[in-house]
């Protein structure tokens, strides 16, 4: 991808530019503890948590920045933040 002078970009470029690489901590999901409340998905600032048909969740690590809001808000401690080794 060539850059455009002046830092000009069209909308929606993050569909191409994956920003998950900024992450230091990653969420570790324990489905057995999950009560399917959907709070994590609702509160994720990057829309990186999607609910499945069974109301469990999956994480999109292409965009998750590892902020930890999901783990902090989870009422059943089903999400744990762990250091990501790269």
């Amino acid at each position, binding site marked *: 991808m060539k*850059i455009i*002078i002046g830092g*000009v*970009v069209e*909308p929606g470029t993050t569909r191409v530019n994956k920003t998950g690489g900024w992450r230091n901590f990653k969420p570790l999901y324990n489905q057995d503890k999950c009560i399917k409340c959907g709070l994590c998905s609702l509160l994720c600032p990057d829309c990186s948590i999607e609910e499945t048909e069974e109301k469990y969740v999956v994480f999109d690590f292409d965009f998750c920045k590892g902020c930890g809001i999901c783990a902090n808000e989870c009422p059943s401690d089903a999400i744990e933040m762990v250091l990501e080794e790269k």
Partner: protein
Amino acid sequence: MKNKMTVVEGSYTVAHSVKVCRPNVISAYPITPQTHIVEDLSQFMADGEIPNCEYINVESEFSAISALVGASAAGARTYSSTTSQGLELMHEVLFNVSGMRLPVVMTVANRAVSAPINIWNDQQDSISQRDTGWIQLYAEDTQEAGDMTAQAFKVAEDKEIKLPAMVCMDGFILSHVYEPVILLEQDLTDEYLPKYEPEYFLDTKNPMTFGAFADPTTYTEFRYLQQKAMDNALEKIEKAADDFNKIFGRYYGGLIDTYKTEDAEIIIMAMGSIIGTIKDVIDKVRSDGIKVGLVKVRSFRPFPVEAIRKAVAEASVIVTLDKNISLGLNEGALLTEVKSSLYNTDISVPVMGFMLGHGGRDIPRRTIRMIIDKAKDTMRSGIAVESEFADLRGDLV
């Protein structure tokens, strides 16, 4: 009638040039420090003389230049004018303008910066903005300042450049002086300056972001491209001056201009209104048998390294005159740049620097004459003395 001369103030000459360049947005802060340029433009607007243009009165210079960021990004031809403290207040936004590659044109009526409070001419204000990524052109007289304004739009808006440009003219000495000039003709200006057609511009139907986030993986390349544009501007500034000459029949040099340098042993280099005084002194000392020449630097950014090397290669002594000082180095900016241009080359000529004319101090012919005498001493000894204030009042310090 073509080439009709009229006596007007320097500020009016520039304002008229801006008018015939057909700007779409003019913004300015109308209170001190300011010149009659924006006052005249506001009069033109009130009289309906600038079609398809919006004039924005803002509450500070920071806002003046910020308004033009948005206007230029939206595809408008944009103009502002400021000086001294006003320019310093713009500092942060100047980087945004150049970084977003917006071809804003701005006149800087060069004036000293506070403290101590001083409203008179020197060039510290624009020199302090040297590294903001703006093209900087310096005019010798009011006719050139007016003509340079059209040239600045032409260079700035060129597809291979896309950089903002400052037209610097000495405050008061040029901005407030009445001189006979030929005001730019509308039909010739239309022939000279094509319509501004940006490749990218803000449009609700086709959304864009300007100056978007660039992390360490891409930031360097944006700076590289700005420098490439500056490199391209070297040729384009020359061409803009040549094209101007073809249409209007006036020429002031391209990147530099030379005066009696062919056989010169001493070459003086300077920028701005001081050039006229130096030419007078050169004519006088040449009649006394001293071979002195002059290199007038029109473009300070991009700095014309190659042109200067070529112009001074045969000289025995080079003298630079600066109406500014880099405090802590005891040098004016021109001295530093000229020395740096000659280092690592075969040219081994002593370069002497003099700082003068600060805060509006007059530069009489005897000061230039004294400098030439010192250059003669250096020619004999081969050793350049350290940079110094040429017009320091020893009785005060």
